[in-house]
Protein backbone atom coordinates (compact mmCIF):
# COMPACT_ATOMS: atom_id res chain seq x y z
CA UNK A 1 0.00 0.00 0.00
CA UNK A 2 1.54 3.29 -1.11
CA UNK A 3 1.84 6.08 1.44
CA UNK A 4 0.48 8.56 -1.09
CA UNK A 5 -2.82 6.76 -1.75
CA UNK A 6 -6.19 7.37 -0.04
CA UNK A 7 -8.19 4.47 1.39
CA UNK A 8 -11.95 4.18 1.08
CA UNK A 9 -14.51 1.56 2.03
CA UNK A 10 -16.66 0.54 -0.91
CA UNK A 11 -20.12 -0.99 -0.33
CA UNK A 12 -21.92 -2.84 -3.12
CA UNK A 13 -25.64 -3.57 -3.34
CA UNK A 14 -28.09 -5.57 -5.43
CA UNK A 15 -26.95 -6.06 -9.06
CA UNK A 16 -23.57 -4.43 -8.41
CA UNK A 17 -22.84 -6.84 -5.58
CA UNK A 18 -23.85 -9.75 -7.81
CA UNK A 19 -21.63 -8.53 -10.68
CA UNK A 20 -18.53 -7.76 -8.64
CA UNK A 21 -19.03 -10.56 -6.14
CA UNK A 22 -18.32 -8.54 -2.99
CA UNK A 23 -20.47 -6.79 -0.40
CA UNK A 24 -17.72 -4.59 0.94
CA UNK A 25 -14.10 -3.89 0.02
CA UNK A 26 -11.29 -1.60 1.04
CA UNK A 27 -9.96 0.27 -1.96
CA UNK A 28 -7.01 2.55 -2.68
CA UNK A 29 -7.73 5.63 -4.74
CA UNK A 30 -5.60 8.54 -5.85
CA UNK A 31 -5.92 11.58 -3.60
CA UNK A 32 -8.16 14.08 -5.38
CA UNK A 33 -10.26 11.37 -7.05
CA UNK A 34 -13.81 12.25 -7.99
CA UNK A 35 -16.71 9.84 -8.39
CA UNK A 36 -16.05 9.71 -12.16
CA UNK A 37 -12.47 8.58 -11.48
CA UNK A 38 -13.63 5.81 -9.17
CA UNK A 39 -16.15 4.69 -11.79
CA UNK A 40 -13.33 4.50 -14.37
CA UNK A 41 -11.04 2.68 -11.94
CA UNK A 42 -13.71 0.05 -11.20
CA UNK A 43 -14.59 -0.33 -14.88
CA UNK A 44 -10.92 -1.05 -15.65
CA UNK A 45 -10.66 -3.50 -12.75
CA UNK A 46 -13.99 -5.28 -13.49
CA UNK A 47 -14.47 -5.01 -17.29
CA UNK A 48 -17.60 -7.24 -17.21
CA UNK A 49 -19.22 -4.66 -14.91
CA UNK A 50 -18.23 -1.63 -17.01
CA UNK A 51 -21.58 -1.37 -18.80
CA UNK A 52 -23.56 -1.64 -15.56
CA UNK A 53 -21.30 0.89 -13.82
CA UNK A 54 -22.38 3.58 -16.30
CA UNK A 55 -25.91 3.54 -14.88
CA UNK A 56 -25.07 3.35 -11.18
CA UNK A 57 -25.39 6.06 -8.58
CA UNK A 58 -22.79 6.66 -5.89
CA UNK A 59 -23.04 7.87 -2.34
CA UNK A 60 -20.23 9.36 -0.27
CA UNK A 61 -20.62 9.10 3.49
CA UNK A 62 -24.33 8.26 3.08
CA UNK A 63 -25.25 11.19 0.82
CA UNK A 64 -25.92 10.76 -2.89
CA UNK A 65 -23.05 12.22 -4.93
CA UNK A 66 -22.64 13.38 -8.53
CA UNK A 67 -19.80 12.39 -10.86
CA UNK A 68 -18.06 15.66 -9.97
CA UNK A 69 -17.97 15.00 -6.22
CA UNK A 70 -14.57 14.70 -4.58
CA UNK A 71 -14.00 11.52 -2.54
CA UNK A 72 -12.30 12.30 0.78
CA UNK A 73 -9.79 9.98 2.40
CA UNK A 74 -11.47 7.36 4.58
CA UNK A 75 -14.88 7.84 2.93
CA UNK A 76 -17.64 5.24 2.99
CA UNK A 77 -18.62 5.02 -0.67
CA UNK A 78 -21.56 2.96 -1.93
CA UNK A 79 -22.58 1.94 -5.46
CA UNK A 80 -26.30 2.02 -6.10
CA UNK A 81 -28.04 0.29 -8.96
CA UNK A 82 -30.97 2.32 -10.23
CA UNK A 83 -33.64 0.12 -8.74
CA UNK A 84 -35.63 0.67 -5.60
CA UNK A 85 -37.84 -1.28 -3.29
CA UNK A 86 -41.05 -0.78 -1.43
Amino acid at each position, binding site marked *: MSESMNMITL*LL*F*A*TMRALIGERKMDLEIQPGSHVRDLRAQLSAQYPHAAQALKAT*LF*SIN*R*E*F*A*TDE*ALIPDGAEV*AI*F*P*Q*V*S*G*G
Partner: protein
Amino acid sequence: MTVFPTIFSITEDELNLNDVLSQITLPSTGAACFFTGMVRAKTTRGEPYQTDYLEYEAYAPMAESKMKQIAVEIRERWPSVEGIAMIQRVGRLFPGTPTVMIACTAAHRDTGVFEAAHYGIDRLKQIVPVWKKEMGPDKQKWVEGDYSPQAGE
Protein backbone atom coordinates in the same frame (compact mmCIF):
# COMPACT_ATOMS: atom_id res chain seq x y z
CA MET B 1 -42.69 20.91 26.12
CA THR B 2 -43.90 17.76 24.39
CA VAL B 3 -41.36 15.80 22.39
CA PHE B 4 -42.94 14.34 19.27
CA PRO B 5 -41.78 10.77 18.61
CA THR B 6 -40.02 9.82 15.38
CA ILE B 7 -39.48 6.11 14.86
CA PHE B 8 -37.50 4.65 11.97
CA SER B 9 -36.03 1.26 11.43
CA ILE B 10 -34.78 -1.29 8.95
CA THR B 11 -35.69 -4.66 10.35
CA GLU B 12 -36.13 -8.35 9.61
CA ASP B 13 -39.01 -8.54 12.10
CA GLU B 14 -42.71 -8.61 11.26
CA LEU B 15 -44.39 -5.22 11.21
CA ASN B 16 -46.86 -4.75 14.05
CA LEU B 17 -49.18 -1.86 13.24
CA ASN B 18 -50.85 -1.91 16.67
CA ASP B 19 -47.51 -1.45 18.42
CA VAL B 20 -46.47 1.30 16.04
CA LEU B 21 -49.73 3.16 16.59
CA SER B 22 -49.37 3.07 20.37
CA GLN B 23 -45.80 4.36 20.08
CA ILE B 24 -46.84 7.46 18.14
CA THR B 25 -50.04 8.22 20.07
CA LEU B 26 -49.57 11.09 22.55
CA PRO B 27 -52.16 12.47 25.01
CA SER B 28 -52.99 15.10 22.38
CA THR B 29 -53.26 12.63 19.48
CA GLY B 30 -56.65 11.92 17.90
CA ALA B 31 -55.88 10.83 14.33
CA ALA B 32 -53.47 8.54 12.50
CA CYS B 33 -52.88 7.75 8.84
CA PHE B 34 -50.90 4.62 7.91
CA PHE B 35 -49.62 3.43 4.59
CA THR B 36 -48.37 -0.12 4.18
CA GLY B 37 -46.92 -1.75 1.07
CA MET B 38 -47.33 -5.49 0.62
CA VAL B 39 -45.73 -8.11 -1.63
CA ARG B 40 -48.17 -8.90 -4.45
CA ALA B 41 -48.58 -12.54 -5.51
CA LYS B 42 -49.61 -11.38 -8.95
CA THR B 43 -49.08 -8.11 -10.75
CA THR B 44 -51.09 -7.07 -13.78
CA ARG B 45 -49.89 -3.52 -14.43
CA GLY B 46 -47.67 -3.79 -17.52
CA GLU B 47 -46.70 -7.36 -18.45
CA PRO B 48 -48.48 -9.63 -15.92
CA TYR B 49 -46.29 -11.79 -13.70
CA GLN B 50 -46.39 -13.90 -10.57
CA THR B 51 -44.17 -13.63 -7.53
CA ASP B 52 -43.10 -16.46 -5.25
CA TYR B 53 -41.25 -14.16 -2.87
CA LEU B 54 -39.04 -11.09 -2.79
CA GLU B 55 -35.58 -10.65 -1.36
CA TYR B 56 -35.17 -7.18 0.12
CA GLU B 57 -31.89 -5.59 1.01
CA ALA B 58 -31.08 -2.14 2.29
CA TYR B 59 -28.05 0.04 2.89
CA ALA B 60 -29.26 0.26 6.46
CA PRO B 61 -27.34 3.19 7.99
CA MET B 62 -27.99 5.38 4.97
CA ALA B 63 -31.64 4.24 4.82
CA GLU B 64 -32.14 5.29 8.44
CA SER B 65 -30.47 8.62 7.82
CA LYS B 66 -32.80 9.21 4.82
CA MET B 67 -35.82 8.29 6.95
CA LYS B 68 -34.72 10.86 9.52
CA GLN B 69 -34.48 13.43 6.71
CA ILE B 70 -37.99 12.57 5.47
CA ALA B 71 -39.35 13.06 9.00
CA VAL B 72 -37.79 16.52 9.07
CA GLU B 73 -39.34 17.34 5.68
CA ILE B 74 -42.77 16.18 6.90
CA ARG B 75 -42.59 18.27 10.05
CA GLU B 76 -41.61 21.33 8.04
CA ARG B 77 -44.55 20.90 5.67
CA TRP B 78 -47.18 19.75 8.21
CA PRO B 79 -46.29 21.26 11.59
CA SER B 80 -49.41 19.72 13.16
CA VAL B 81 -47.99 16.21 12.72
CA GLU B 82 -47.18 14.72 16.13
CA GLY B 83 -45.72 11.21 15.71
CA ILE B 84 -44.01 9.73 12.65
CA ALA B 85 -43.01 6.10 12.15
CA MET B 86 -41.23 4.58 9.17
CA ILE B 87 -40.27 0.92 8.98
CA GLN B 88 -38.73 -1.05 6.14
CA ARG B 89 -38.56 -4.82 6.36
CA VAL B 90 -35.68 -6.65 4.70
CA GLY B 91 -34.99 -10.31 3.98
CA ARG B 92 -37.18 -12.89 2.26
CA LEU B 93 -40.77 -11.67 2.12
CA PHE B 94 -43.71 -13.65 0.82
CA PRO B 95 -46.91 -12.41 -0.89
CA GLY B 96 -49.37 -10.73 1.45
CA THR B 97 -46.60 -9.55 3.79
CA PRO B 98 -46.33 -5.86 4.65
CA THR B 99 -42.80 -4.77 3.71
CA VAL B 100 -42.84 -1.03 4.30
CA MET B 101 -44.87 1.23 6.52
CA ILE B 102 -45.26 4.90 7.26
CA ALA B 103 -47.62 6.37 9.83
CA CYS B 104 -48.27 9.95 10.87
CA THR B 105 -50.40 11.14 13.79
CA ALA B 106 -51.95 14.49 14.72
CA ALA B 107 -54.58 15.89 17.06
CA HIS B 108 -57.25 16.01 14.33
CA ARG B 109 -57.84 14.34 10.99
CA ASP B 110 -58.05 17.52 8.90
CA THR B 111 -54.60 19.07 9.38
CA GLY B 112 -52.51 16.92 7.06
CA VAL B 113 -52.09 13.33 8.31
CA PHE B 114 -53.24 11.88 4.99
CA GLU B 115 -51.07 14.24 2.96
CA ALA B 116 -48.07 13.70 5.26
CA ALA B 117 -48.24 9.90 4.99
CA HIS B 118 -48.71 10.11 1.22
CA TYR B 119 -45.72 12.44 0.87
CA GLY B 120 -43.72 10.17 3.17
CA ILE B 121 -44.22 6.97 1.18
CA ASP B 122 -43.40 8.76 -2.09
CA ARG B 123 -40.17 10.08 -0.57
CA LEU B 124 -39.30 6.69 0.95
CA LYS B 125 -39.52 5.15 -2.51
CA GLN B 126 -37.47 7.98 -4.02
CA ILE B 127 -34.54 8.35 -1.66
CA VAL B 128 -34.27 5.40 0.72
CA PRO B 129 -31.70 2.89 -0.60
CA VAL B 130 -33.65 -0.38 -0.64
CA TRP B 131 -33.59 -2.98 -3.41
CA LYS B 132 -35.72 -5.98 -4.10
CA LYS B 133 -35.16 -9.10 -6.14
CA GLU B 134 -38.24 -10.74 -7.56
CA MET B 135 -38.30 -14.54 -7.32
CA GLY B 136 -40.97 -15.94 -9.64
CA PRO B 137 -41.84 -19.31 -11.15
CA ASP B 138 -39.80 -18.62 -14.31
CA LYS B 139 -37.12 -16.16 -13.35
CA GLN B 140 -35.44 -13.95 -10.84
CA LYS B 141 -34.80 -10.30 -11.44
CA TRP B 142 -34.09 -7.05 -9.68
CA VAL B 143 -37.13 -4.83 -9.75
CA GLU B 144 -37.07 -1.25 -10.89
CA GLY B 145 -38.84 1.31 -8.77
CA ASP B 146 -39.17 5.04 -8.26
CA TYR B 147 -35.69 5.46 -6.89
CA SER B 148 -34.58 8.91 -8.08
CA PRO B 149 -32.47 10.72 -5.52
CA GLN B 150 -31.02 14.13 -6.22
CA ALA B 151 -27.36 14.83 -5.46
CA GLY B 152 -26.94 15.66 -1.78
CA GLU B 153 -30.08 13.73 -0.80
